[in-house]
């Protein structure tokens, strides 16, 4: 499909007119977005704004009602190797019987291939990734013994082990200690220095200006996006956080019920 020409052809991620719904209730509405290459992009918005859903929809993890996503100018399934996903820490059972190294090695499964055993060079790559996040000493540890910050670093290492060009991170700063937060920020900057791009769901408004070059402000729809200095303004913040658009919300609820009222 040909994208309308207002989209930037150099964009790492181009989301065009995307609507996503859970059980027919829209969570994201007509999202249009271009993510520039080599930038750290913060994705902010209140709870239930659809931040995680945006990332999952871009990764084909949840079905889109309409719209299109292009990553590096192609459908996601063709460029999976170049995209690393860091899910929310709470999304897995940390009591699972595997070691830290086992988890990080999962980042290499794509290059190992189906049904083939893990090779020594994959473990080496996983160790390098663990060193990058300062977790090399914990490689053999069972994951249930990790603190929240260490769990997060483990997930980051798994993404690094993949050697991707684009990183989609779902709340990497949630519930981590100050040292881990600093380590993650340094890591993000190192990635940017290598020309890589990261889209990071973020909650702490205090640090948005410090951490991110670009900023996407989301609340069911994109309220504003662009360089942080330009869009991270009190006015936009008020639009993003100052209550939902009541009409839009009501319409979404009716769609979710799928009975009387608005029909699709």
């Amino acid at each position, binding site marked *: 499909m040909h994208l309308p020409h207002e989209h930037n052809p150099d964009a790492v991620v181009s989301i065009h007119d995307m609507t996503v719904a859970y059980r027919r209730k829209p969570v994201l509405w007509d999202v249009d977005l271009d993510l520039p290459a080599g930038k750290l992009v913060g994705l902010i918005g209140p709870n239930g704004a659809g931040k995680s859903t945006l990332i*999952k929809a871009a*990764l*084909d*993890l949840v079905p889109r009602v309409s719209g299109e996503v292009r990553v590096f100018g192609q459908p996601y*399934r063709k460029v*999976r190797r170049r*995209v690393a*996903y860091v*899910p929310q820490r709470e*999304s*897995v*059972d940390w009591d*699972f*019987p*595997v*070691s830290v190294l*086992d*988890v990080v090695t*999962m980042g290499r*499964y*794509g290059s*190992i291939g*189906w*049904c*083939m*055993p*893990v090779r020594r060079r994959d473990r080496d790559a996983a160790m390098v990734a663990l060193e990058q996040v300062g977790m090399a000493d914990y490689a053999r540890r*069972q994951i*249930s013994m990790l603190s929240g910050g260490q769990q997060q670093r483990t997930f980051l290492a*798994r993404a690094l082990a993949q050697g991707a060009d684009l990183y989609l991170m779902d709340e990497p700063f949630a519930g981590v200690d100050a040292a881990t937060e600093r380590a993650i920020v340094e890591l993000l900057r190192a990635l940017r220095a290598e020309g890589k791009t990261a889209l990071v769901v973020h909650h702490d408004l205090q640090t948005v200006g410090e951490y991110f070059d670009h900023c996407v402000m989301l609340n069911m729809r994109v309220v504003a996006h662009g360089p942080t200095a330009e869009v991270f303004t009190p006015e936009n913040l008020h639009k993003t956080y100052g209550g939902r658009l009541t009409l839009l919300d009501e319409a979404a609820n009716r769609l979710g019920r799928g009975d009387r009222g608005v029909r699709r």
Partner: protein
Amino acid sequence: MRVGLVVAAVVVLAVCASAGAAQAGGGFSADVMRVIRLEDHNARVVLLGTGLLGAAAGAVGAFALLRRRALMGDALSHATLPGVALAFIVSVAWGHGERSQGFLLLGATVTGVLGVATMHLLERFTRLKEDAAMGIVLSVFYGAGVALLGVAQRMPGGNAAGLEGFIYGKTASMVSSDAVLISAAAAVVTVAVLVFYKEMALLSFDPGYAAARGYPVSALDAVMLGLVVAVTVIGLQAVGLILMIALLIIPAAAARFWTNRLGVMVGLSAVMGAMACVTGAVVSALVEKMPSGATIVLVAAGGFFVSLMFGTARGVVPRFLERRFLGQREARRHLLRAMAELTETAGTDGVARRDLTRARAWRQGELRAAEGQLTGEGLMEIAREGRVRLTAEGRLEALRVVREHRLWELFLVRYADIAPSHVDRDADAIEHLISPAMMAELERLLAAEQPAPAIPPSPHALPAPGGTSTGRVP
């Protein structure tokens, strides 16, 4: 990981083979001897078959448990009954008086899968939760199965007597050809688990990530379901459909108590499943009218209980011992510190036992045990009646302990903004758990103001001999 699995497979084969090669012991009745020595070919093949079945069920069950799909196996196994009965009715209607094992199992597979599919459809298109959907499918399919079984038993020309074996499990009714079929299917399942090991692990741990990496999660789930179906169907005759779920869950849950590594858990689960099946089948053969399903489950439950109690990774007893050990170490530190602080405030040589008892809230017998420990180490000695004192070596050790405690207190006051009057208990709770590396970090942090051998002053009041508190030490 994979090496562990291969080793486990070898062990399973060895168990089966050694059962086959077992020599007779004296003192058994002739019946027992016959079973133990496996004199007839049929018994040997049946034991091999059930052993392999147990191994396959254990391995598949480990993944099903970790993927939280284990209970689905229960709905599945109950849903096989109408298939068995229908297949029997059809084969009799076609004029085959003898029942064909393969055909019955095919029927079981069809309705079993149908049951699981119904469950998924219910969940997806109604707002019923998983437990409700499972309960409905399980009971309705089982009910239909029992009704069809009633019809089958009244059919002229068919011998439906053996069909009840599918409900409770009856290894005694298995013939060589049944066992060969079971062995082959179990071997295929085990190989499939080995081949898809990596993918199953990823799927069980983090399906969202697996999907993002491009793994067809639904297809992988279907493979896992297929393996559960295969194990359940071939397990019907030995274990029976009511108890089949136990063979999927119990060995896997038991294995988890012994290890924190997935490969070991899968292998161990397979070994335990095989052992439960072989032992259960033997016992069932020895005791008249004892359904093998029941004996297999009871043997597995015995293994589970042993694992729960003594499993090295998270068993009750090892954890109790570890806590006790930690408690003893803690009490030793507490006593050393109490001795040092009482000596510090009173300046006496030798501390009254009465003051020691009052120094902190000791648990029952804790003080006496700690005293014994320190005396045994040569750190403490009796000064005179009712008074104890530290030896020279003991004083050094006590000073080290006090310094660690005070540094923690300082750290907590300085960096964690904890009130000086509250800091004692907090430091107490933490200091026993910190590693030498953390201690080194603490030393580094506070080295400038509190150089190494010195004891920093306490930030709060210390207990004094005679029960009154001294004023706050600056």
